[in-house]
């Protein structure tokens, strides 16, 4: 009797969110995937009947180039975000509690202004008559004729800008728990500071780095606003294509197939990371078990 009531309570607490997400997340996902196997009807709808035509047409050379560019820019964005976040997280974690809260707040504050507006501000910044162009050309880094806006470089800069707080935060959270006396111990034993940073600090914040990678890479893959506002015609990403096929072209099967492709681009690295982490955990558990059993048998002997 107690078991039944317990089960009822579990179901009662679980069902609201369970049903909502099943209906508005799982069902739509299934629909998208199934639409990709239909043909488009001329009126912008979906023609009945199963076909692989859509998949064949997205294998034309145009699309792989876009997919490749998307993955490449996302990977670069992730790389720069993590590289910049590591020293930042280290610096914040070494501050006093009061400073930490203040600096962490400063990093998150831009996040509270509209994303669209921030991207738009970058467009102004990168404008040919804008501040950056003037600054960089006056100190002779770039030629006056080079355009900062509307290319892959602009997408990369704005992406790093947009996702940087999401990389700093998890690494900082891990760094905050890191025992900094380990670094001192390493220095004490003669390690050079960069060596200690790489060999002690980096493994210590490993988990933070992994979640930073995911927090940046995933939204970067599906990015639409940034390439749309600061990218050029020759730097389209997969997000722009999905939009184009959905609205101006009204080719829903095509859009669905592209969405499926994006999902693969996200899930593949995600799966790899999950597998790698699981293996690491297992290794660690095994090492621990071995060490323990060795100690026990050693103690008995």
């Amino acid at each position, binding site marked *: 009797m107690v078991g039944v009531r317990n089960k009822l309570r579990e179901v009662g607490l679980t069902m609201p969110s369970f049903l909502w997400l099943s209906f508005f997340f799982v069902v739509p996902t299934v*629909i998208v995937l199934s639409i990709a196997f239909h043909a488009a009807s001329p009126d912008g709808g979906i023609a009945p009947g199963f076909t692989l035509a859509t998949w064949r047409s997205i294998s034309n050379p145009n699309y792989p180039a876009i997919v490749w560019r998307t993955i490449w820019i996302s990977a670069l964005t992730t790389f720069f975000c993590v590289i910049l976040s590591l020293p930042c997280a280290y610096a914040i974690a070494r501050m006093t509690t009061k400073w930490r809260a203040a600096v962490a707040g400063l990093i998150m504050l831009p996040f509270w202004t*509209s994303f669209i507006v921030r991207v738009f501000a970058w467009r102004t910044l990168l404008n040919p008559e804008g501040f950056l162009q003037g600054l960089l050309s006056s100190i002779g880094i770039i030629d006056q004729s080079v355009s900062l806006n509307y290319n892959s470089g602009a997408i990369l800069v704005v992406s790093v800008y947009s996702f940087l707080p999401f990389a700093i935060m998890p690494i900082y959270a891990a760094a905050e728990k890191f025992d900094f006396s380990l670094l001192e111990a390493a220095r004490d034993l003669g390690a050079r500071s960069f060596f200690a940073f790489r060999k002690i600090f980096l493994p210590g914040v490993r988990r933070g780095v992994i979640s930073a990678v995911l927090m940046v890479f995933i939204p970067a893959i599906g990015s639409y606003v940034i390439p749309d506002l600061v990218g050029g015609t020759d730097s389209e990403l997969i997000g722009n294509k999905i939009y184009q096929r959905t609205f101006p072209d009204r080719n829903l099967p095509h859009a669905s197939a592209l969405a499926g492709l994006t999902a693969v681009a996200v899930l593949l690295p995600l799966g790899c990371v999950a597998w790698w982490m699981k293996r690491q955990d297992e290794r660690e558990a095994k090492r621990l078990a071995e060490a323990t059993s060795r100690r026990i048998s050693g103690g008995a002997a």
Partner: protein
Amino acid sequence: MKKSAFCIVILALVLVFLYLPIFVLVGNSFNAAKFGGEWAGFTFDWYAALFSPRNREIWMSFKRSLLVAAIATVVSCVLGTTAAMALNKWKGRLQTVHFGLIYTPLVVPEILMGISLLMMFASLKIPCGLLTIIIAHITFCISYVTMTVLARLQDFDDRITEAAYDLGAGGLYTFFHVTLPILMPGIVAGGLLAFTLSIDDFVITFFVTGPGADTLPLKIYSMIKHSRQMPVINSLSTIMLVLTCLLVGVSRIVANHRPHRHLKTTK
């Protein structure tokens, strides 16, 4: 120590990088030049224009955004809290699937959620509009609220609810007088997150919006794309930035101020 100095320099540069566009934005909101390229003198014109009847649409869309965010926050807080409680309390197969359902939306790019919801609404012939936007927002907010509340629940000591039962309280009394007050900071944090995400969401809303249902980000986007009113956007953003800072500041002060009750509340 040299290491630390190097890191602090990088941190300072990163902060400059993060605030650069915001300074440009605030500066340009007072810049008389229409395209913000160079400084053409100080002006309040754009703030005046923002409140002129010509730009009524901006405020309409702002109100719509607030409405959507408010509803999405309340609903996702309820669904997220129940979900977190179920996930925390039970560990069976149902909860494994449940956790998958909650977790996956967090790792799926927004654009995919946008397009799949659009396709579903299209195939069910549900007209897109405010309702579909609200549904979409609730869908992506649930996961964030659940995760925030779950984090709070994991620090929660089950002995405390046991103590309540032990002293004679029933399940509902315990929930409303003991559990909920303890979870409240988590729920509020989750709700704040949901509200921010909802009010700032562009991509998903962009896909599921319908005629006359533009939220503020959509309105701003169409102004960027189609009209020549950029400085007005700057002034609006500056006002929102100031409001946000005030809100954050006030909430900090409130949070730091411990209630000091000298009167007996129980009579």
